[in-house]
């Protein structure tokens, strides 16, 4: 089976790199959640554009990524994105701010807008963010982030089972 003919009902996409300390939590959570559910993990991803072609027709897409928003490291947040929203949300390729950990050419919101414009948006999109602490070069997660992995996996699997 290949990308061209395999479309899962529920798609998991972990963003990040395991060589970027806490940035590696997204792919780790996605891989574990795939083992515990019927969802398909298409990661690890580093470019949201790679979601195109993977999420077409999906009932639910769950993007799992490390975030840095100023809350306590290890905090897990589940954010439902309105896939039908008309407004141009922040993100896209204009949003790259100095100091973010993103290397994404076009942000998730930009990709969603693009997918909407060509009729390839998924029916539902949820972001599971895990607050990271360290994003330098290296392997392994911070203790607080490591401790949050099982919570994040549970959150993802719970979302999958609702479908």
């Amino acid at each position, binding site marked *: 089976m*290949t*990308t*061209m003919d395999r479309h899962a009902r529920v798609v998991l996409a972990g963003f990040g*790199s*395991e*060589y*970027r300390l806490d940035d590696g939590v997204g792919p780790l959570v996605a891989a574990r959640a795939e083992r515990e559910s019927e969802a398909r993990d*298409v*990661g*690890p*991803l*580093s*470019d949201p*554009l*790679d979601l*195109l*072609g993977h999420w077409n027709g999906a009932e639910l897409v769950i993007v799992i990524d490390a975030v840095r928003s100023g809350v306590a490291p290890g905090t897990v947040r589940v954010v439902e994105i309105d896939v039908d929203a008309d407004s141009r949300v922040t993100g*896209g*390729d*204009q*949003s*790259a*701010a*100095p*100091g*973010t*950990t*993103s*290397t994404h*050419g*076009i942000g998730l919101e*930009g990709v969603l*807008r*693009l997918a909407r*414009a*060509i009729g*390839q948006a998924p029916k539902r999109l949820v972001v599971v963010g895990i607050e990271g602490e360290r994003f*330098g*070069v*290296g392997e392994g997660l911070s203790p607080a982030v490591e401790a949050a992995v099982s919570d994040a996996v549970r959150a993802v699997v719970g979302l999958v089972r609702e479908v």
Partner: protein
Amino acid sequence: MTHGSQRERTIGVEGISRVEGEGSLRVSVRDGTVTNVALEIFEPPRYFEAMLVGRHFSEAPDITARICGICPVAYQMSACAAMEDACGVVVDERVTALRRLLYCGEWIQSHALHVYLLHAPDFLGCADAVELAERDRPAIERGLALKRTGNLLMETVGGRAIHPVNVRVGGFYRAPDRDVIAALGEPLRHARDAALATVRWVGGFDFPDVVGDYRYVALRHPEHYAIERGRPTSADGSDFDVAHFADLVVEEHVERSTALHARLGGRHYLTGPLARYAINGDVLPSIARQAARDVGLATRVDNPFQSIVVRAVELVAACDEALSLVEAYEPPDPPATEVAPRAGIGTGATEAPRGLLFHQYEIDERGTILRARIVPPTSQNQLTIEDDLRRVAQAGLDLDDHDLQWRCEQAVRNHDPCISCAAHFLDLEVVRS
């Protein structure tokens, strides 16, 4: 953003849009003359090189592939070539052919992404690919279909579309079956048609009348358009062995940037599509050469804005080459040559979509990496990109700040820099004083 009086202008752009990664650009103007241009990069590849030290040589392809999420195959291929060189192993030609097929997949997906989603909006007055999709949906759909075919190749040969897991030093973990590879034929024929349509589409764009002063360097192979192997060659015909790359290319540290700036023989140079086309145009597949002729492309292109046409021609070449490889496919058996480590130094260079990617490793007799050096295309191109910026900014001083900033961003985008190869963060700042 702009600061300063009429006499002094400083234009700063923070967050260059539609460039892989993040960076910053600063252009300073005084008394009507561009006095300084700086493309700032904040993180050196040295950190990754340090991470490789102490690891087993067999891990290099996968670790380095994760350095750059945008062209992982390029990193895998250069790492494999360097390790095989260090260990004195020459792989089976069938392995080389399968590597080339995998690499064609990366070229197709990377070029389709850049041409359609990142670069074309510049020429059509669109703010971004979304606006382009709203205006010309079939074009964007064609680009995405091309990208999917590239991903399909990577998934079929590499085991996974995004970060291939089937590559190892010496070859592959598993050779795909004949029928699996044969099934790529039909999508590749469609992709080649789409690539030809791409050349016609971008060949009709209007290009600013700019001529760069480029010193081109690319790998060259006598039989085909160099991708997975070749000899570093300049457009003037001079060439040298990959083993000498590390001695001839001098990287210097510049205060404003943590990335290293590369010079060859004391001068900056340019790698990537324009260089490859100028040096290897004679060995392009005939269908790609004809496509270039049909849109009036000269055999050497020095207008950086026309790089989009050259990328489209390379899309045709990659699709056609992949199709030939699919038709001639013989599964390598065994899928990999066993590589026993030995103490020594090895070098490898391949053509990533955006330019030449060099790796060098020193390993001990157990295969432990003692030293690593990675020279990504973007750090080689950085000085030339700054040179372009100086020229474009000077020529555009009559533009208002917004338009000048836009033009400068385009000048950066012409070279498809992958800032995340050279650095993780890049802020773009255009400053006028």
